[in-house]
C-alpha cells in the first residue's frame, strides 16, 4: 500500500526518560503501521509503555530514536507550535476523565478547537452544533459539563475530538470512568464512527473494551509482544 494512505507509520521508536543520571527506557524499539480506517486497541499492563506510545502518537511527546509519520507527515522533527498544529488538525483526543472545560457549555467545549483553528464565532457554533447532534446531544448544547451524565460528557469530548475532522481519533481509556451500560454506548459510538471510515486508536487495559477493536497490539516492557486482528474484525461492526 502507498505510504501516503497510512494513518500511522511508526518505525523502531524508542523513548528514554532521563531521571537525573538514570536512564529509564519506556519504549525499546516499536514498529507498526496503522492504515486508514483501522480500529486498533493498544493494550498492556502498567509500565508496559502504552501511555508513552500514546503520547508519542498523540504528538504530545517526542520520540528519542526512530521515525514516526502521521498521515504522511514526518512529525519527529517538528517544533512545539508545529506539533500543536498537528494535534489541532490531524488528531482528536478522548480522555478517560473527559477533560472538558468546566463552566463552559457543551457547544463552546466542542467549538474550542475551531477557535484555535481561527474560525469565526458563527462558523464555530454551527459546526460544533452539528457535531453535537452527530453524537446524539443536539439538544444539550447549552448544558455545562457538570449538568451532564458521564456518558454524555464523554460524547461531548468525542464531538470535540472530531470537530476538526482529524485523520486519527485517539482514545485513552475512554470508558475508564463509565459504568458498563454507558461504556457499551460509547463503544457502540466508536463502532459507528469506525464503520463510517474513522481511524480509531484506543489505549485500554480492559479486555472487554479492547474486544470491540478490530486489531489489538499488546505491549510489555517497551516492546510489542503481539499484534493480532481480533475475531470480530472479520464481521460487521457491533450494533
Amino acid at each position, binding site marked *: 500500500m502507498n505510504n501516503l494512505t497510512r494513518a500511522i507509520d511508526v518505525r523502531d521508536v524508542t523513548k528514554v526518560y532521563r531521571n537525573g543520571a538514570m536512564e529509564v527506557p519506556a519504549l525499546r524499539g516499536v514498529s507498526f503501521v496503522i492504515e486508514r480506517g483501522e480500529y486498533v486497541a493498544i493494550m498492556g499492563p502498567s509500565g508496559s509503555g502504552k501511555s508513552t506510545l500514546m503520547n508519542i502518537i498523540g504528538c504530545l511527546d517526542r520520540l528519542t530514536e526512530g521515525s514516526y509519520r502521521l498521515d504522511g507527515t514526518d512529525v519527529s522533527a517538528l517544533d512545539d507550535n508545529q506539533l500543536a498544529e498537528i494535534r489541532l488538525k490531524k488528531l482528536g483526543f478522548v480522555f478517560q476523565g473527559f*477533560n472538558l*472545560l468546566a463552566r*463552559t457549555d457543551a457547544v463552546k467545549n466542542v467549538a474550542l478547537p475551531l477557535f484555535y483553528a481561527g474560525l469565526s464565532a458563527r462558523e464555530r457554533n454551527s459546526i460544533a452544533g452539528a457535531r453535537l447532534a452527530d453524537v446524539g446531544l443536539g439538544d444539550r448544547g447549552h448544558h455545562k459539563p457538570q449538568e451532564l451524565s458521564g456518558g454524555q460528557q464523554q460524547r461531548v469530548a468525542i464531538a470535540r475530538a472530531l470537530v476538526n475532522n482529524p485523520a486519527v481519533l485517539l482514545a485513552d481509556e475512554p470508558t475508564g470512568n463509565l459504568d458498563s451500560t454507558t461504556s457499551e454506548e460509547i463503544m457502540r459510538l466508536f463502532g459507528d464512527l469506525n464503520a463510517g471510515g474513522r481511524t480509531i486508536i484506543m489505549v485500554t487495559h480492559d479486555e472487554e473494551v479492547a474486544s470491540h477493536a478490530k486489531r489489538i497490539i499488546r505491549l510489555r516492557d517497551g516492546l510489542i509482544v503481539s499484534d493480532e486482528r481480533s475475531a470480530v474484525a472479520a464481521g460487521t461492526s457491533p450494533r
Partner: protein
Amino acid sequence: MLYFEEALRVLMANKIRTLLTITGLIIGVGAVIAIQVLGSGMSGAVEGLLGGLADNSFFVQPNVQQGDFQKAAMHEKDLADLRIHVANVSDVAPLSFVRQLAHVGHGHSPAVLFAASAERYATTPFAFGGNFTPDQVAARATVCILSYKTYQKLFPDNSDPLGKSLHVANRRYVITGVMAAPRTGVLNANFGGDVAIPYTVYERDWLQGRILFGAAIYVIDQSQMAQTEVAVINELRNLHRNVKGIQYITFDKKTFNQLVGAVFGVLTMIVGLIGAVSLLVAGIGIMNIMLVSVTERTREIGIRKAIGARKGQILAQFFVEALLLCGIGCGIGLALGLAIGYGVNAFAIVKLTGSITALPWLRATLIAVTFATIVTLAFGTYPAYRASNLDPIEALRYE
C-alpha cells in the same frame, strides 16, 4: 472575542479575588487621576483668587515682618510720587477699603467700599453699564461700580440701577456699572469688595491721611514688570529713607502663580508617587494572582494544548485576562478618581473661589491608564509565559 469572553468568565467566577487583586490598581489610578484633576482646579482657583490682580499690575506693600513696619506705612503722597518718578508706571491705585452702610432709596446694605483704577476692571464682564473711564478717574467723578451681590441686595426687584444714586454716609455716588454675576465663589466675592469708586475720589472722600495697605501699580510694558517692581521698591525706600533698613515687598500674578505652582507641584509629586507605588504593588498583586491562576488551571491549560492550542494562543488568553483585570481596575479607579477630583473641585474650590476650570480628565486618564497598562503587561508577562510553556503531558496529569 473568545479570549475576552473566557477571561470575563474566569474573573466573574472569582469575584472577590478579582476585586482584591484590582484594589491596588483602583487606588493607584484613582490617586493619579484625582491629583491631576485637582491640580488644574487649584491653578484655576488661584487664577480666580487673583481676579483683582490684572496681568499688567502688581501690588506693593510694606513687609509686615519687619520690626517697625508702621513707619514704613505708605501714604497717598507716596503714590503721587510713584506716578511721577518711576518709569513704566501707567497708574497707581491705593489698596484701601472702608466698611460703610450703603443706601439706595429705602434699601440699604453694609458694604466694603474700596479704591479702584480705571484699569482694574478693564477686562471684567459687566451686567449693567461698564468700567470707569480714565477721564472719570482723573476728574474725580463721583461714580461707582457695584458687585453683583451688592446689586442684588440693594435692588431686590432686579431693576436697572444705572444712573441711580448710592448714598454712603453723606456722600453720593452715581451707579455706572454692575459687575456680571460670578464666578460665585465665596472667596472671590469677598476679595473683590462690594462697591468700587475711582481711587481719586476715594483718596479725597475716605483716605484723609489714613495709611494704606499698599498700592496697585499698573505698568505700561509688561515685559519690564520685574525691573519696575525693583524701581518702585527703591523709590519707596528713598521716600522713607529716614527709616533705617525699611523693606517693601511686591507681589504679581506670575510670582504668586509660581509660588502656588511650586507648592502644588510638590503635592502632585507626592500623590503621584503614592499612585505610582500602589500601581507597582498592584502589578505585583496581579502577577501573584495570575501565577496562582496558572497553577490552578494547569489541567485546563493541558487540555487546551492537547487540543491544539499554540503557545501564542495560551499566552494571549492570559494576557487578555490580565488586561481585563487592568481594564476593570482602571475603570473603577477612573470613576473614583474623577469623582474625587470633580467632587472636591465642585464643593471646595468652586464654592470658595468661584473658579470654574476646564479639568483635564482626558489627559489624567491617559496618563493613569497608560501607566497601569504598562505595569500590567510587565507583570503579566511572566505568568502568561509560564502558562504557555507548560508541558502538555505534565499539565494533563496535574490534579
